[in-house]
């Protein structure tokens, strides 16, 4: 089967849907000329999964059907993208069919590589191993936290880029807070094994978070990367990235942030950079070699934190610049690397980190956002989901 579309979008996640909505809002003539390809039946608001794991939200609230979020005027093909042929303006789908396009937006997200850690896939959802990075297993995280009777609670952060880099520590802070409430904290060791050199990249928030780690008496092991899990013995082994030594911890609860990487069909295509990520200009989001291709979101090689908030700022830039190219102009809209991480530091406590490419804080509130605040927690829990479904995905926020 062969088909042609004016604008083809690979990926119906937050990037793809918001870019489609913005294009349709800016140029009504594009109605019926935009096609989104995505094999998923559902569209998930993943930032809520931290709160699901912490028992503060139901996971069903984070999920809607893909059909319900596709904007009017765009067509959805429920199929996966298999390969790109940008020299012939073509994308091949999983069923072997080919779609040609005039313009392409790649917003395919990030690939979770569960199999890269021996013992992870086979123990996930049992033997005390959980992860908020899987819709299926977010409630197992809460089950482990609320039934925890003491021992070692181990949390990990891998040596790869991840979506929402703050999530691995958010669930740790919530768990620690809950252990206090359930009176098991005095017989619990909270351990953070992170491949990163520090708790956070942006100095202002790093300073604040270091104090929180100290206050909560969390044993942080930086430059330690999880390399294997033994579910029966309940042990997790970490490699010290500097000395190459292996350290093994017994765990009673293990929350794993899995290693992630670029989607294979991008990494193997002419669109990728040397590391496999979609090669785009950091400010215009136009592809480095193909002028009719734009990219946004986690699949791109943008040197910033991969978050939904970053995508919210990237979508208008990608849409605006694509329209400019469509009108034979140079792309002028600029993305400055903005990203944000609402760092939940406990129940009803949150630090709202906002920063740019240069790791400089770019705060939008009229107060110091490095302070833990209940108001910001309320915003994350109750307002951001509404802003996502009704604003960001509709192209108005």
């Amino acid at each position, binding site marked *: 089967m062969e088909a042609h579309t004016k604008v083809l979008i690979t990926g119906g996640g937050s990037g793809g849907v918001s870019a489609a909505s913005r294009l349709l809002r800016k140029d009504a003539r594009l109605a019926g000329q935009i096609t989104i390809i995505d094999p998923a039946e559902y569209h998930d608001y993943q930032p809520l999964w931290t709160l699901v794991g912490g028992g503060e939200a139901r996971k069903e609230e984070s999920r809607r059907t893909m059909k319900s979020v596709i904007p009017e005027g765009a067509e959805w093909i429920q199929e996966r993208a298999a390969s790109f042929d940008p020299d012939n303006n073509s994308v091949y789908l999983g069923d072997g069919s080919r779609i040609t396009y005039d313009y392409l937006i790649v917003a395919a997200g990030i690939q979770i590589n569960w199999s890269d850690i021996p013992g992870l896939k086979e123990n996930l959802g049992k033997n005390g191993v959980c992860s908020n990075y899987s819709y299926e297993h977010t409630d197992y995280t809460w089950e482990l936290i609320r039934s925890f009777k003491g021992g070692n609670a181990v949390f990990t952060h891998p040596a790869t880029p991840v979506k929402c880099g703050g999530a691995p520590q958010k669930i740790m802070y919530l768990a620690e807070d809950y252990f206090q409430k359930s009176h098991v904290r005095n017989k619990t060791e909270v351990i953070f094994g992170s491949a990163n050199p520090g708790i956070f990249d942006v100095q202002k928030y790093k300073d604040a978070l270091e104090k929180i780690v100290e206050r909560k008496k969390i044993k942080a092991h930086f430059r330690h990367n999880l390399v294997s899990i033994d579910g029966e013995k309940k042990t997790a082994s970490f490699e010290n990235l500097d000395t190459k030594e292996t350290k093994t911890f017994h765990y009673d609860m293990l929350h794993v942030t899995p290693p992630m990487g670029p989607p294979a069909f991008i990494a193997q295509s002419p669109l990728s950079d040397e590391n496999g990520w979609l090669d785009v200009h950091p400010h215009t989001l136009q592809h480095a070699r193909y002028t009719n291709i734009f990219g946004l979101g986690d699949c791109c090689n943008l040197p910033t934190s991969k978050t939904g908030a970053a995508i919210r700022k990237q979508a208008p830039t990608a849409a605006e610049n694509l329209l400019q190219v469509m009108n034979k102009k140079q792309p002028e809209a600029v993305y400055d690397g903005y990203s944000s991480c609402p760092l939940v530091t406990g129940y009803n406590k949150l630090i709202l980190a906002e920063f740019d490419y240069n790791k400089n804080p770019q705060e939008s509130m009229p107060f110091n956002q490095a302070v833990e605040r209940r108001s910001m927690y309320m915003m994350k829990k109750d307002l951001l989901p*509404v802003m996502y*479904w009704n604003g960001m995905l509709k192209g108005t926020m």
Partner: protein
Amino acid sequence: MAVNEKTDSRLKALEDPEVMASLEYILRQMPDIEKSLRKVQEGAAFAGAVLQDEAAVQSMEERASSYRVDPEALAAAVRLTNKLPEMEAALTQAENVLSFVQDIARDEASMESLKKSSERYVEPWIQQGKEHLSTIEEIKRRAEEDKKSYSLFHLLKWRRRKPVQTILRYMNASLDVLEQKK
């Protein structure tokens, strides 16, 4: 240059493939060119007819004279034109906010979620209010049921109770402050 030479040079030019291609293109476009010319001709004929129609010209003159298109109005129009980009941005922003609010109102899941959230935040206040109300009702009930008569001895006994001490402290402070303000 002799006539023959001129003819030769023109024939040579015609042999140039680029010239041939251009001529071929022009020939192919002739129907469209003819249509365009016809439209221009029709437009000119219409304009001519209008100008010859005295009644129509008179009506247009009257209408134009009723408009206030003086230099001041023209200057204002220019200023407004300059402001159009800002106005467009503000209007787009307002349109986005309106769309956002309308979308929430239409979205049952979001409305339900907002309702639950607001209930959760308001609930403790309502609960607290209910507790205060039940305390007041209990006091009222007991006072109405109480038929005893109280003596100075009772007052001396109450003075050791914490709420009475608090009330007395407030009374004392109020008297001090009022005395000083006099």
